[in-house]
């Protein structure tokens, strides 16, 4: 029972880490607090569902279609809808407020479109749903696969950010957007790139989650909330912090659901959030306090 709980907690935590990495890129680099983040994830889950059930496309192949599409859509959202806000904001706080308001509006638009298309019912599909035995615990194969992919994507992102010129530029903008132009970095283009990468990551998370969780059109907000908590817990802009905080959140949720009550998982999440805010508001691995 314990091993099974740890296994499914790690899978869930891996997913949280993945979507939180997307959010931390968007917030840490592009300075956009994106409240519609979870909606994009659910949209990706619906896309994977639709591809699988109507066109029999394997979700892993679907990943190759959905993720680039999400990258393009996010890039367009940043360029068309968010750049005007960046241009008119006198300082960072004003941009934060404006971006929160604008993406709050987007949340309802995307959610409304999904409700109109799919209704409020819960969806799921069966893909690789056979049990695998690990250290005495049985775990569904699709969960293991999802965890593997999440780890690979996260590692790829980490290497991209630390080992390439473009990734270094992204990190430079995150550290100081005012000084980055001095070393010939195009801040707007880099921010758009980071925002689009964030969208791609959350879409990947959505496709992977659709393989083993049931979802509906209204559930995106909950994932946004959890991603925000993971981002703050790990320290804004910190990928490693995201990973650790995401895994902690997944494990805590699974433990609460297994031994206390499944109805209290969100309460447990919030309890963690409150404790973090009270004790270490800069996050577990953050250094600079804002």
């Amino acid at each position, binding site marked *: 029972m314990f091993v099974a709980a740890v296994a499914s907690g790690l899978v869930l935590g891996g997913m949280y880490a993945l979507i939180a990495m997307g959010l931390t890129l968007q917030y840490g680099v592009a300075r956009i607090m994106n409240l519609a983040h979870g909606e994009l994830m659910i949209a990706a889950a619906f896309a994977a569902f639709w591809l699988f059930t109507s066109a029999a496309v394997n979700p892993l192949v679907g990943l190759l279609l959905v993720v680039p599409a999400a990258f393009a859509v996010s890039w367009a959202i940043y360029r068309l809808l968010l750049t005007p806000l960046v241009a008119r904001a006198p300082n960072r*706080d004003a941009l*934060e407020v404006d971006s*929160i*308001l604008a993406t709050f509006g987007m*949340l309802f638009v995307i959610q409304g479109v999904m409700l109109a298309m799919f209704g409020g019912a819960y969806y799921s599909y069966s893909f690789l749903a056979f049990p695998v035995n690990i250290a005495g615990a049985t775990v569904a194969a699709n969960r293991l696969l999802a965890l593997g992919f999440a780890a690979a994507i996260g590692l790829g992102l980490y290497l991209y950010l630390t080992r390439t010129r473009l990734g270094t530029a992204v990190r430079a903008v995150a550290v100081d957007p005012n000084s980055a132009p001095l070393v010939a970095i195009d801040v707007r283009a880099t921010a758009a790139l980071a925002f689009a990468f964030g969208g791609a990551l959350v879409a990947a998370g959505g496709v992977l989650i659709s393989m083993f969780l049931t979802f509906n059109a209204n559930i995106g907000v*909950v994932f946004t*909330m959890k991603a925000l908590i993971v981002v703050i817990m790990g320290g804004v802009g910190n990928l490693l912090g995201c990973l650790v905080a995401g895994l902690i959140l997944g494990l805590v949720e699974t433990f609460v659901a297994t031994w206390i009550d499944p109805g209290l998982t*969100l309460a447990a999440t919030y309890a963690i959030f409150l404790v973090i*805010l009270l004790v270490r*508001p800069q996050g577990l691995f953050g250094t600079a306090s804002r």
Partner: protein
Amino acid sequence: MKPVLALAAAAIAVAFLAAVPLYADAYQLSLAITLMNYTVLATAWSLFSGPTRYVSLATVAFFGIGAYTVAVLAERMAWPYILLIALAVGLAVALVVGLSTLRLSGVYFVIFTFGLAELIRQIVTWYEVNVTRTLGRYVFVDIDAADIYWQLLGLAVLAFAAGVLIRRSRLGLALRVIGDDETVARHIGINTTFAKVALFALSASFMTLCGAVMAPRWTYIDPAIAFNPVVSFQVLIMALLGGVHRLYGPLFGVVPLVLLFEFLLARFPNHFSILVGLAFMLIVYAIPQGIVGFAERIARGKRGAA
């Protein structure tokens, strides 16, 4: 306008509004209640969020606390006591949330309030399912639509009075400094946490009472009805459309948007949330200062040109 004149005009307006239930039919009264409900909520919202510029997404959390307290306590005690208890619960939650998040940067507050309604809804649902085993309650109290309307009108008057008094006090000045620059506010010796928490608690009190007063409208209440996130969203856009830097600003958002939402809900019930979202984005992009701010800028422009 001179203060005496303003006071007289306000008294006449209130007397006129108080007479509405005497000659309105059932539909008009129900529309008037909706208008008054959002007037209270949007004014309460901008009491806190207007001067400080902290965006609160938790309106329905407090509204729902009020409504649900009434649902639990209805028939057990007299109406004024129920309102007092609802107020106490709302105030306690507001203090906990305010003290833990308002000491920090604004974005933490936004995030926390973003999920607060969902959290309270889940806890209440869990409690009802596991402890009381009754999900969904009936509210039978001897209060008709006209009573609700008058109570809401009373709340609206109180909210406006509170707004006027705060604006003239040291607290109001402190809040405006915080809204302009919080670092400066701290440096000139303003206790920013106290000012923010006090105002947040006051604003939450009005929202809680508003929910409590509105509860008898439904007769049946479950957590999903009481904590409906669309309410927070609607209050936010109404306040923003009207303009939050003036006390009467939200009124200019409440009236057109309540009528618009009535129309949209009747004509396009399945696409309501898309249309509301689009209306919201239009407001954020096109008139970020709200109608009142927009009108003032035009008036100022004309005067400057002349």
